[in-house]
Protein backbone atom coordinates (compact mmCIF):
# COMPACT_ATOMS: atom_id res chain seq x y z
CA UNK A 1 0.00 0.00 0.00
CA UNK A 2 1.36 3.42 -0.98
CA UNK A 3 1.97 5.92 1.79
CA UNK A 4 -0.45 8.84 1.85
CA UNK A 5 1.29 11.93 0.49
CA UNK A 6 1.64 15.18 2.42
CA UNK A 7 -0.14 17.02 -0.41
CA UNK A 8 -3.11 14.71 -0.06
CA UNK A 9 -3.28 15.30 3.69
CA UNK A 10 -3.07 19.06 3.10
CA UNK A 11 -5.92 18.85 0.57
CA UNK A 12 -7.94 16.80 3.01
CA UNK A 13 -7.36 19.34 5.75
CA UNK A 14 -8.22 22.22 3.42
CA UNK A 15 -11.47 20.58 2.30
CA UNK A 16 -12.46 20.01 5.93
CA UNK A 17 -11.62 23.59 6.91
CA UNK A 18 -13.40 24.96 3.86
CA UNK A 19 -16.52 22.96 4.63
CA UNK A 20 -16.49 23.99 8.27
CA UNK A 21 -16.23 27.67 7.32
CA UNK A 22 -12.88 28.22 9.02
CA UNK A 23 -11.15 29.31 5.82
CA UNK A 24 -13.85 31.84 4.99
CA UNK A 25 -13.79 33.25 8.53
CA UNK A 26 -10.05 33.79 8.28
CA UNK A 27 -10.56 36.44 5.62
CA UNK A 28 -11.85 38.90 8.26
CA UNK A 29 -15.06 39.83 10.03
CA UNK A 30 -16.38 42.33 7.45
CA UNK A 31 -17.68 41.50 4.03
CA UNK A 32 -18.96 44.04 1.52
CA UNK A 33 -20.50 43.65 -1.87
CA UNK A 34 -23.39 44.34 -4.16
CA UNK A 35 -26.75 42.59 -4.17
CA UNK A 36 -26.90 41.23 -7.72
CA UNK A 37 -30.66 41.60 -8.09
CA UNK A 38 -30.78 45.27 -7.10
CA UNK A 39 -27.28 46.66 -7.55
CA UNK A 40 -27.47 48.00 -3.98
CA UNK A 41 -24.43 47.69 -1.73
CA UNK A 42 -24.19 45.81 1.53
CA UNK A 43 -21.81 45.70 4.51
CA UNK A 44 -21.77 42.64 6.74
CA UNK A 45 -20.11 41.76 10.04
CA UNK A 46 -19.77 38.03 10.63
CA UNK A 47 -17.70 37.20 13.69
CA UNK A 48 -17.87 36.33 17.38
CA UNK A 49 -21.19 34.61 16.99
CA UNK A 50 -22.99 37.54 15.44
CA UNK A 51 -24.12 38.36 11.91
CA UNK A 52 -25.03 42.00 11.28
CA UNK A 53 -25.83 43.16 7.78
CA UNK A 54 -26.70 46.56 6.34
CA UNK A 55 -28.10 46.80 2.83
CA UNK A 56 -28.70 50.15 1.15
CA UNK A 57 -32.23 51.34 0.55
CA UNK A 58 -32.77 53.95 -2.13
CA UNK A 59 -34.61 56.99 -0.75
CA UNK A 60 -37.24 56.35 -3.43
CA UNK A 61 -37.84 52.86 -2.04
CA UNK A 62 -38.34 54.29 1.43
CA UNK A 63 -40.58 57.13 0.21
CA UNK A 64 -42.81 54.68 -1.64
CA UNK A 65 -42.89 52.24 1.28
CA UNK A 66 -44.04 54.78 3.85
CA UNK A 67 -46.40 56.68 1.59
CA UNK A 68 -48.12 53.37 0.83
CA UNK A 69 -48.61 52.94 4.57
CA UNK A 70 -50.23 56.28 5.26
CA UNK A 71 -47.45 58.83 5.70
CA UNK A 72 -47.92 62.17 3.98
CA UNK A 73 -45.34 63.41 1.46
CA UNK A 74 -43.41 65.59 3.91
CA UNK A 75 -42.96 62.94 6.58
CA UNK A 76 -42.17 60.22 4.04
CA UNK A 77 -39.54 62.55 2.56
CA UNK A 78 -38.18 63.25 6.02
CA UNK A 79 -37.65 59.54 6.69
CA UNK A 80 -36.39 58.68 3.20
CA UNK A 81 -33.64 61.30 3.17
CA UNK A 82 -32.17 60.37 6.56
CA UNK A 83 -30.08 57.42 5.38
CA UNK A 84 -32.20 54.34 6.00
CA UNK A 85 -30.73 50.89 5.61
CA UNK A 86 -32.34 47.46 5.55
CA UNK A 87 -30.70 45.62 8.45
CA UNK A 88 -30.45 42.14 9.84
CA UNK A 89 -29.03 41.10 13.22
CA UNK A 90 -28.65 37.42 14.04
CA UNK A 91 -27.17 35.38 16.85
CA UNK A 92 -25.27 32.73 14.91
CA UNK A 93 -23.52 31.18 17.90
CA UNK A 94 -23.85 27.55 18.89
CA UNK A 95 -26.83 26.55 21.03
CA UNK A 96 -24.84 26.43 24.25
CA UNK A 97 -23.29 29.86 23.82
CA UNK A 98 -26.34 31.66 25.12
CA UNK A 99 -28.25 34.77 24.18
CA UNK A 100 -26.91 38.11 23.01
CA UNK A 101 -28.53 41.45 23.70
CA UNK A 102 -28.29 44.70 21.79
CA UNK A 103 -29.15 48.31 22.55
CA UNK A 104 -29.03 50.52 19.47
CA UNK A 105 -28.84 53.62 21.67
CA UNK A 106 -25.29 52.61 22.59
CA UNK A 107 -24.11 52.31 18.97
CA UNK A 108 -22.11 55.20 17.48
CA UNK A 109 -21.95 56.72 14.01
CA UNK A 110 -18.77 58.49 12.94
CA UNK A 111 -19.06 60.76 9.91
CA UNK A 112 -17.66 64.08 8.68
CA UNK A 113 -20.20 65.71 10.99
CA UNK A 114 -18.77 64.03 14.09
CA UNK A 115 -20.15 61.33 16.36
CA UNK A 116 -23.90 60.79 16.37
CA UNK A 117 -26.44 58.12 17.31
CA UNK A 118 -28.93 56.18 15.29
CA UNK A 119 -32.53 57.29 14.90
CA UNK A 120 -34.36 54.55 16.74
CA UNK A 121 -38.07 53.78 17.05
CA UNK A 122 -38.48 56.14 19.94
CA UNK A 123 -36.70 59.04 18.20
CA UNK A 124 -38.33 59.06 14.76
CA UNK A 125 -41.32 61.20 15.81
CA UNK A 126 -38.88 64.04 16.65
CA UNK A 127 -37.87 64.04 12.98
CA UNK A 128 -41.35 64.33 11.52
CA UNK A 129 -42.23 67.56 9.72
CA UNK A 130 -45.92 67.09 10.54
CA UNK A 131 -46.51 65.75 14.04
CA UNK A 132 -49.93 64.37 13.08
CA UNK A 133 -49.27 60.85 11.81
CA UNK A 134 -52.02 58.37 10.94
CA UNK A 135 -52.17 55.51 13.40
CA UNK A 136 -51.67 52.84 10.72
CA UNK A 137 -48.60 54.72 9.48
CA UNK A 138 -47.12 54.98 12.97
CA UNK A 139 -47.68 51.25 13.55
CA UNK A 140 -46.03 50.42 10.22
CA UNK A 141 -43.00 52.55 11.06
CA UNK A 142 -42.62 51.11 14.53
CA UNK A 143 -42.66 47.49 13.43
CA UNK A 144 -40.62 48.08 10.27
CA UNK A 145 -37.63 49.23 12.30
CA UNK A 146 -35.00 47.03 13.90
CA UNK A 147 -35.90 46.84 17.60
CA UNK A 148 -33.97 49.31 19.73
CA UNK A 149 -33.38 46.68 22.38
CA UNK A 150 -33.64 42.96 21.83
CA UNK A 151 -32.37 39.65 23.21
CA UNK A 152 -31.47 36.99 20.65
CA UNK A 153 -31.13 33.33 21.57
CA UNK A 154 -28.96 31.29 19.17
CA UNK A 155 -30.70 31.20 15.81
CA UNK A 156 -32.90 34.23 16.57
CA UNK A 157 -32.79 37.20 14.24
CA UNK A 158 -34.60 40.37 13.28
CA UNK A 159 -34.86 42.21 10.03
CA UNK A 160 -35.71 45.87 10.11
CA UNK A 161 -34.80 49.30 8.92
CA UNK A 162 -32.20 51.38 10.71
CA UNK A 163 -31.83 55.16 10.37
CA UNK A 164 -28.55 57.07 10.53
CA UNK A 165 -29.70 60.69 10.19
CA UNK A 166 -27.33 61.49 7.31
CA UNK A 167 -28.00 62.89 3.85
CA UNK A 168 -28.10 60.57 0.80
CA UNK A 169 -24.64 59.65 -0.45
CA UNK A 170 -22.88 60.42 2.86
CA UNK A 171 -20.28 58.02 4.25
CA UNK A 172 -19.95 56.87 7.85
CA UNK A 173 -18.34 54.32 10.15
CA UNK A 174 -20.50 52.42 12.59
CA UNK A 175 -19.20 51.15 15.91
CA UNK A 176 -21.65 48.68 17.37
CA UNK A 177 -21.72 46.38 20.36
CA UNK A 178 -23.58 43.50 21.89
CA UNK A 179 -23.54 41.63 25.17
CA UNK A 180 -23.25 37.92 25.70
CA UNK A 181 -23.67 37.22 29.37
CA UNK A 182 -21.72 39.91 31.20
CA UNK A 183 -19.23 40.38 28.40
CA UNK A 184 -19.48 43.28 25.94
CA UNK A 185 -18.27 42.71 22.38
CA UNK A 186 -17.45 45.38 19.83
CA UNK A 187 -17.90 45.31 16.08
CA UNK A 188 -17.48 47.85 13.33
CA UNK A 189 -18.43 48.61 9.75
CA UNK A 190 -16.24 51.12 7.94
CA UNK A 191 -17.00 53.49 5.06
CA UNK A 192 -20.66 52.62 4.85
CA UNK A 193 -22.40 54.68 2.16
CA UNK A 194 -25.93 56.00 2.41
CA UNK A 195 -27.68 55.24 -0.88
CA UNK A 196 -27.74 58.19 -3.28
CA UNK A 197 -31.06 59.86 -4.03
CA UNK A 198 -31.32 58.73 -7.62
CA UNK A 199 -34.38 58.41 -9.77
CA UNK A 200 -33.54 55.77 -12.36
CA UNK A 201 -34.87 56.45 -15.82
CA UNK A 202 -37.62 54.08 -16.84
CA UNK A 203 -36.41 51.31 -19.09
CA UNK A 204 -37.45 51.71 -22.76
Amino acid at each position, binding site marked *: *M*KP*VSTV*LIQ*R*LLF*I*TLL*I*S*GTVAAATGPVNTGVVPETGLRFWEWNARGVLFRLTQRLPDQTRA*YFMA*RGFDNENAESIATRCVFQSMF*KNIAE*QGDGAVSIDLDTWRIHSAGGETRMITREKWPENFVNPEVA*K*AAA*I*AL*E*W*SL*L*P*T*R*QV*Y*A*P*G*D*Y*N*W*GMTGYGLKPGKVFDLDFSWKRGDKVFQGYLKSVECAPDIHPDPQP
Partner: protein
Amino acid sequence: MISKRLLQVVIALWAVFALHEVIAQQQEPLLHEVPERPAAPDFSIEDMDGVVHTLSAYRGKVVILNFWATWCPPCREEMPAMERAWQMLRREDIVMLAVNVGEDEDSIFEFTASYPVEFPLLLDRESAVIRDWPVRGLPTTFVIDPQGKIVYRAIGGRDWDAPGVLQKIRALKSRP
Protein backbone atom coordinates in the same frame (compact mmCIF):
# COMPACT_ATOMS: atom_id res chain seq x y z
CA MET B 1 -3.08 2.77 -7.53
CA ILE B 2 -6.13 1.01 -6.15
CA SER B 3 -5.35 2.08 -2.61
CA LYS B 4 -5.01 5.74 -3.75
CA ARG B 5 -8.38 5.56 -5.54
CA LEU B 6 -9.87 4.02 -2.44
CA LEU B 7 -8.47 6.83 -0.34
CA GLN B 8 -9.93 9.41 -2.75
CA VAL B 9 -13.34 7.78 -2.42
CA VAL B 10 -13.02 7.83 1.37
CA ILE B 11 -12.05 11.51 1.25
CA ALA B 12 -15.00 12.32 -0.98
CA LEU B 13 -17.36 10.49 1.36
CA TRP B 14 -15.82 12.28 4.33
CA ALA B 15 -16.31 15.65 2.60
CA VAL B 16 -19.95 14.84 1.83
CA PHE B 17 -20.50 13.73 5.42
CA ALA B 18 -18.84 16.87 6.82
CA LEU B 19 -20.92 19.06 4.51
CA HIS B 20 -24.08 17.27 5.59
CA GLU B 21 -23.15 17.85 9.22
CA VAL B 22 -22.58 21.56 8.63
CA ILE B 23 -25.89 21.93 6.77
CA ALA B 24 -27.67 19.96 9.47
CA GLN B 25 -26.19 22.26 12.14
CA GLN B 26 -27.22 25.38 10.21
CA GLN B 27 -30.76 24.10 9.77
CA GLU B 28 -31.08 22.87 13.33
CA PRO B 29 -34.54 23.76 14.50
CA LEU B 30 -34.34 26.31 17.26
CA LEU B 31 -37.24 26.83 19.61
CA HIS B 32 -36.09 28.40 22.84
CA GLU B 33 -37.62 27.63 26.17
CA VAL B 34 -39.10 30.65 27.87
CA PRO B 35 -37.88 30.85 31.47
CA GLU B 36 -40.54 30.24 34.13
CA ARG B 37 -43.21 29.66 31.47
CA PRO B 38 -45.30 32.80 31.98
CA ALA B 39 -49.06 32.74 31.45
CA ALA B 40 -50.06 33.66 27.91
CA PRO B 41 -51.85 37.04 27.85
CA ASP B 42 -55.43 36.50 26.71
CA PHE B 43 -57.07 38.24 23.78
CA SER B 44 -60.21 38.14 21.65
CA ILE B 45 -59.84 39.28 18.05
CA GLU B 46 -61.42 38.56 14.70
CA ASP B 47 -59.93 36.61 11.86
CA MET B 48 -60.28 37.38 8.16
CA ASP B 49 -63.72 35.74 8.10
CA GLY B 50 -65.02 37.74 11.05
CA VAL B 51 -64.77 34.81 13.47
CA VAL B 52 -63.66 35.88 16.96
CA HIS B 53 -60.79 33.87 18.46
CA THR B 54 -60.27 33.99 22.21
CA LEU B 55 -56.94 32.54 23.20
CA SER B 56 -58.14 31.17 26.53
CA ALA B 57 -60.85 29.22 24.70
CA TYR B 58 -58.08 27.00 23.34
CA ARG B 59 -57.03 25.91 26.85
CA GLY B 60 -56.32 22.17 26.76
CA LYS B 61 -54.67 22.43 23.34
CA VAL B 62 -51.19 23.35 22.21
CA VAL B 63 -51.28 26.74 20.43
CA ILE B 64 -48.70 28.07 17.98
CA LEU B 65 -49.11 31.85 17.98
CA ASN B 66 -47.31 33.86 15.33
CA PHE B 67 -47.10 37.67 15.06
CA TRP B 68 -46.44 38.87 11.53
CA ALA B 69 -46.99 41.45 8.81
CA THR B 70 -47.18 41.19 5.03
CA TRP B 71 -44.28 43.62 4.48
CA CYS B 72 -41.91 41.63 6.71
CA PRO B 73 -39.58 39.46 4.53
CA PRO B 74 -38.90 36.68 7.08
CA CYS B 75 -42.64 36.55 7.89
CA ARG B 76 -43.39 35.88 4.24
CA GLU B 77 -40.56 33.39 4.02
CA GLU B 78 -41.78 31.22 6.88
CA MET B 79 -45.48 31.21 5.90
CA PRO B 80 -45.25 28.20 3.55
CA ALA B 81 -43.45 26.19 6.25
CA MET B 82 -46.13 27.18 8.76
CA GLU B 83 -48.83 26.01 6.37
CA ARG B 84 -47.04 22.67 5.85
CA ALA B 85 -46.71 22.27 9.62
CA TRP B 86 -50.38 23.14 10.06
CA GLN B 87 -51.42 20.49 7.55
CA MET B 88 -49.51 17.93 9.63
CA LEU B 89 -50.74 19.12 13.03
CA ARG B 90 -54.34 20.25 12.52
CA ARG B 91 -55.84 16.86 13.34
CA GLU B 92 -53.78 16.50 16.52
CA ASP B 93 -55.54 19.04 18.73
CA ILE B 94 -52.88 21.62 17.94
CA VAL B 95 -53.94 25.16 17.01
CA MET B 96 -52.09 27.62 14.81
CA LEU B 97 -52.98 31.32 14.86
CA ALA B 98 -51.17 34.06 12.96
CA VAL B 99 -51.83 37.57 14.26
CA ASN B 100 -51.28 40.26 11.64
CA VAL B 101 -50.06 43.51 13.14
CA GLY B 102 -51.50 46.81 11.96
CA GLU B 103 -52.79 45.96 8.49
CA ASP B 104 -56.24 45.76 6.94
CA GLU B 105 -58.11 42.89 5.30
CA ASP B 106 -57.28 44.09 1.78
CA SER B 107 -53.52 43.92 2.33
CA ILE B 108 -53.78 40.46 3.87
CA PHE B 109 -56.20 39.22 1.22
CA GLU B 110 -53.74 40.30 -1.48
CA PHE B 111 -50.93 38.57 0.41
CA THR B 112 -52.80 35.27 0.63
CA ALA B 113 -53.10 35.15 -3.15
CA SER B 114 -49.33 34.54 -3.23
CA TYR B 115 -49.07 32.76 0.13
CA PRO B 116 -52.24 30.70 0.57
CA VAL B 117 -52.74 29.41 4.12
CA GLU B 118 -55.63 27.61 5.78
CA PHE B 119 -54.93 28.43 9.43
CA PRO B 120 -56.70 31.50 10.87
CA LEU B 121 -55.20 34.92 10.16
CA LEU B 122 -56.19 37.25 12.99
CA LEU B 123 -56.36 41.03 12.75
CA ASP B 124 -54.62 43.16 15.37
CA ARG B 125 -55.42 46.37 13.51
CA GLU B 126 -54.45 48.79 16.28
CA SER B 127 -51.50 46.66 17.47
CA ALA B 128 -53.21 46.44 20.85
CA VAL B 129 -52.76 42.68 21.30
CA ILE B 130 -49.08 42.59 20.44
CA ARG B 131 -48.31 45.17 23.13
CA ASP B 132 -49.37 42.69 25.82
CA TRP B 133 -46.85 40.19 24.53
CA PRO B 134 -43.03 40.23 24.84
CA VAL B 135 -42.55 41.06 21.16
CA ARG B 136 -40.07 43.61 19.83
CA GLY B 137 -39.73 42.55 16.22
CA LEU B 138 -41.59 40.54 13.57
CA PRO B 139 -41.96 37.68 13.14
CA THR B 140 -42.06 36.36 16.68
CA THR B 141 -43.76 33.06 17.44
CA PHE B 142 -44.77 31.48 20.72
CA VAL B 143 -45.77 27.93 21.52
CA ILE B 144 -48.28 27.72 24.35
CA ASP B 145 -48.92 24.52 26.26
CA PRO B 146 -52.38 23.11 27.10
CA GLN B 147 -52.25 24.87 30.49
CA GLY B 148 -51.96 28.28 28.80
CA LYS B 149 -48.26 28.79 29.59
CA ILE B 150 -45.74 30.12 27.08
CA VAL B 151 -43.17 27.35 26.67
CA TYR B 152 -41.21 28.24 23.53
CA ARG B 153 -40.34 31.41 21.65
CA ALA B 154 -38.75 31.99 18.25
CA ILE B 155 -37.61 35.41 17.04
CA GLY B 156 -37.28 35.41 13.25
CA GLY B 157 -38.46 32.76 10.82
CA ARG B 158 -38.18 29.03 11.34
CA ASP B 159 -38.64 25.81 9.42
CA TRP B 160 -41.87 24.96 11.20
CA ASP B 161 -42.27 21.65 9.44
CA ALA B 162 -38.79 20.42 10.40
CA PRO B 163 -39.06 17.10 12.29
CA GLY B 164 -37.26 18.48 15.37
CA VAL B 165 -39.67 21.42 15.65
CA LEU B 166 -42.75 19.23 15.18
CA GLN B 167 -41.45 16.80 17.78
CA LYS B 168 -41.05 19.58 20.36
CA ILE B 169 -44.54 20.89 19.67
CA ARG B 170 -46.18 17.45 19.80
CA ALA B 171 -44.35 16.63 23.03
CA LEU B 172 -46.22 19.46 24.77
CA LYS B 173 -49.51 17.60 24.40
CA SER B 174 -48.46 15.09 27.01
CA ARG B 175 -46.27 17.39 29.09
CA PRO B 176 -47.30 17.84 32.71
